[in-house]
């Protein structure tokens, strides 16, 4: 029989967190701090709107770009929250989660050999999606000493004649790092000078705990060079609804819409109706959840400090990224032993790029009670490691 597989696909490595999932699933009393989604249920009025749309028999396709009223609400929202101007008719595409937007953007924009800069540690999708789109991923190693922010110097160092795009995933999963306006301005300067495009994944934009999030597309000269990805998963606790959107200049959105049209047709209709309600009446829910995450974040930071676990203070998303370098174990070993010995699941930093070595991603999308139990186990574990020297 002939080889049934695509060589390109075969070269892609499966996600590194799979084995933790498999082992943790077999254990009985595992406490997981390894989840990358909110612990809140979708607000009831939003779920209710989804149910209502089903009751009304709205079980048809929507237009490829998404419901017009949803695109209009998205347009209002982006203007109101981030001073972004996108025309709902031509510059917004509703996608199946933010993830589809990543894939669409790369496929619509890359030619074979184009280089895409990816700051790491980062979410697991960018690199394989670049490869699938025939691009060449070039990673930029972010540093703990910079609080995992991307600096102008780091960016300049990796730019070549072939560089076409920069992926900008902030607030960041897994580090929780955010970029402030001045950081973005420095990056924008380089992007414009070197004639690059930016794929700005802002899915955690509502979850910042200091200054409000700034969208790079709102900076002078950046709108025409930026694709902005956002969605409902994190801000409205709607992960399972699979709904996001990507916005940008019409020229690019048109081409992405073609791929979306042929591959997906349209995002789930029920989810789109629910999302209209979320954008219209969900500000209070977002604020409530943000406040709850912030309280847990403060609690975790305090506890890590007390245990003497080194961790920079993150101001975004719902992750902390403590360093475990003092223990002389790799992230993978540490996470595996923590799982086996104390039944606490965390994700090793290396799942998000090699430079995540020496770090763990710990999610605080959990109740304070769950965090307390897990932290007690982690403390017991690290004290044992320290005692063993």
């Amino acid at each position, binding site marked *: 029989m002939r080889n049934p597989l695509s060589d390109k696909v075969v070269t892609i490595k499966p*996600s590194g*967190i799979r084995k*933790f*999932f498999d082992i*943790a*699933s077999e254990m009985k009393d*595992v406490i*997981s701090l*390894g*989840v*990358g*989604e909110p*612990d809140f249920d979708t607000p009831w009025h939003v779920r209710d709107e989804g149910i209502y749309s089903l009751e009304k028999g709205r079980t048809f396709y929507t237009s490829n770009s998404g419901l017009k009223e949803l695109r209009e609400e998205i347009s209002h929202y982006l203007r109101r929250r981030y001073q972004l101007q996108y025309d709902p008719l031509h510059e917004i595409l509703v996608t199946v989660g933010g993830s589809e937007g990543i894939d669409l953007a790369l496929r619509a924009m890359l030619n074979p050999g184009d280089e895409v800069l990816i700051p790491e540690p980062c*979410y*697991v*999708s960018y690199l394989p999606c670049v490869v699938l789109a025939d691009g060449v991923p070039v990673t930029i190693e972010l540093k703990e000493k910079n609080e995992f922010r991307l600096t102008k110097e780091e960016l300049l160092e990796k730019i070549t004649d072939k560089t076409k795009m920069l992926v900008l995933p902030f607030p960041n*999963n897994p580090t929780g790092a955010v970029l402030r306006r001045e950081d973005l301005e420095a990056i924008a300067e380089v992007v414009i000078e070197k004639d690059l495009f930016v794929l700005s994944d802002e899915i955690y934009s509502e979850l910042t705990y200091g200054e409000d999030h700034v969208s790079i597309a709102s900076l002078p000269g950046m709108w025409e060079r930026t694709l902005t990805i956002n969605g409902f998963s994190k801000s409205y606790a709607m992960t399972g609804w699979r709904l996001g959107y990507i916005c940008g200049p019409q020229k690019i959105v048109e081409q992405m819409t073609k791929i979306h049209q042929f591959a997906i047709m349209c995002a789930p209709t029920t989810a789109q109706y629910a999302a209209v309600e979320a954008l219209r009446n969900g500000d209070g829910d977002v604020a409530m959840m943000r*406040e709850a995450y912030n*309280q*847990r974040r*403060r*609690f975790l930071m*305090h506890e890590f400090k007390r245990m003497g676990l080194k961790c920079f203070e993150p101001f975004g998303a719902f992750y902390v990224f403590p360093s475990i370098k003092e223990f002389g174990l790799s992230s993978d070993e540490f996470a595996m032993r923590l799982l086996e010995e104390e039944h606490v*699941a965390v*994700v090793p930093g290396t*799942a998000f790029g090699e430079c995540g070595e020496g770090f763990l991603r710990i999610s605080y999308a*959990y109740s*304070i009670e*769950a965090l307390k139990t897990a932290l007690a186990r982690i403390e017991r574990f690290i004290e044992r490691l320290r005692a063993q020297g």
Partner: protein
Amino acid sequence: MREQILTFLEKNSKIDLQELAIMLGSSEVVIANEIAKMEEEKVICGYHTLIDWEKTSSEKITALIEVRVTPQRGQGFDSIAERIYNYPEVQSLYLISGAYDLLVILQGKTLREVSSFVSDKLSTLDSVLSTATHFILKKYKDYGTILGKQAKDERMLVTP
């Protein structure tokens, strides 16, 4: 800050103050002082326990009684309200807009106890015009808490 403290205490009055201080980015002393002040000002009126009595062996019956009254000159509803709320079996008493005036929430041990309260004590008050008694059959949710249901985390254990 006050509002944040109250939001926590309303859900969990037993919360550890040090923990609360950490979560609110404040200090234990500040929080404790604020709570003491609110107790003094009667913003905080008490610390109670939410009990699902159905899970115990003790028999309890709760009634909602709608009461129409004639307000008294110079007193409005306050004086008749006082006469009613002084009965220890009255759990809550609200002045209500709409078809009736006062809503009495009454807790008794038996149906007879409740009905004798209504016929002997409530209806005989001079200014009471009429009453309508409703018995609670089942409590699904009380004080923002869904009773009897345990939330379960059904998320996958590890996701990117």
